[in-house]
């Protein structure tokens, strides 16, 4: 007699994580660890995890760099959505209006002297994201980035 494996119940997972982060550099690591714990049951492949972490780091650091806490942008909202084929990171801040999807692609430097530190983060997010969508809603920047899984 051959026994067939009994399908296990689908893994139950909250589909969205909401974080409120202080607008400071230490929030990057806090967010990364919270997202790591939230997504752990999915057992995502290493490339997907790398992409999520890179997008998270680059977007958060850009917000922290440009949305000055002392100007009133004290908090950053971050939502993480689980979809069948992607993970979405949704960022919200009340800093000055900035649409990273409109930023020009940096020109590849031909020499070390030509290398510029600016724009690297935006370029890397373009590379690792499946999609990016920005809107300005009232006084808030909203950026949604999806990473394929």
């Amino acid at each position, binding site marked *: 007699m051959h026994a067939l494996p009994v399908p296990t119940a689908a893994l139950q997972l909250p589909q969205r994580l909401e974080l409120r982060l202080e607008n400071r*550099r*230490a929030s*990057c*690591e806090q967010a*990364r660890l919270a997202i790591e714990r939230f997504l752990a049951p999915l057992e995502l492949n*290493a*490339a997907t995890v*790398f992409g999520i*972490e*890179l997008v998270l*780091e*680059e977007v958060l*650091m850009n917000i922290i760099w440009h949305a000055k806490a002392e100007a009133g942008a004290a908090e950053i909202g971050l939502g993480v959505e689980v979809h069948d084929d992607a993970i979405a990171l949704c960022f919200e801040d009340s800093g000055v209006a900035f649409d990273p999807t409109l930023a020009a692609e*940096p020109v*590849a*430097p*031909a*020499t*070390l*002297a*030509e*290398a510029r*530190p600016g724009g*690297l*983060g935006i*370029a*890397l997010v373009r*590379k690792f994201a499946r999609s990016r969508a920005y809107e300005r809603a009232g006084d808030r920047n909203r950026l949604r980035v999806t990473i394929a899984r």
Partner: protein
Amino acid sequence: MDIEVSQRDNTTFVRLSGRLDSPGVDRIETRFTAAVAGPGRPTAVDLAGVSFLASMGIRMLISNARALGQKGAKMALFGVPEPIMTVLEHVAIDQIIPVLATEQEAAEALRA
């Protein structure tokens, strides 16, 4: 993020391990700069133990490579894991800082 520094044949060897994200760079940048840009010797940087690289880490490498260049020396990277290499290639850093497979190849490239 951890850093180990050694000297051999007038060449500085730096081994980095861990995450080169913003907290990682904050932890080691002062020591990295002191070990690399300070002495101004040819420098081979071992990235085999690096598990993550973002733009803050790239900036640290570029600024120190540039500082070395101003002192007439070069930087070479070696042992780069695949996902890290993807990051370096996408921002074309591999076109301006030599990336080699092994420490020996990096040392030879620095002597050339």
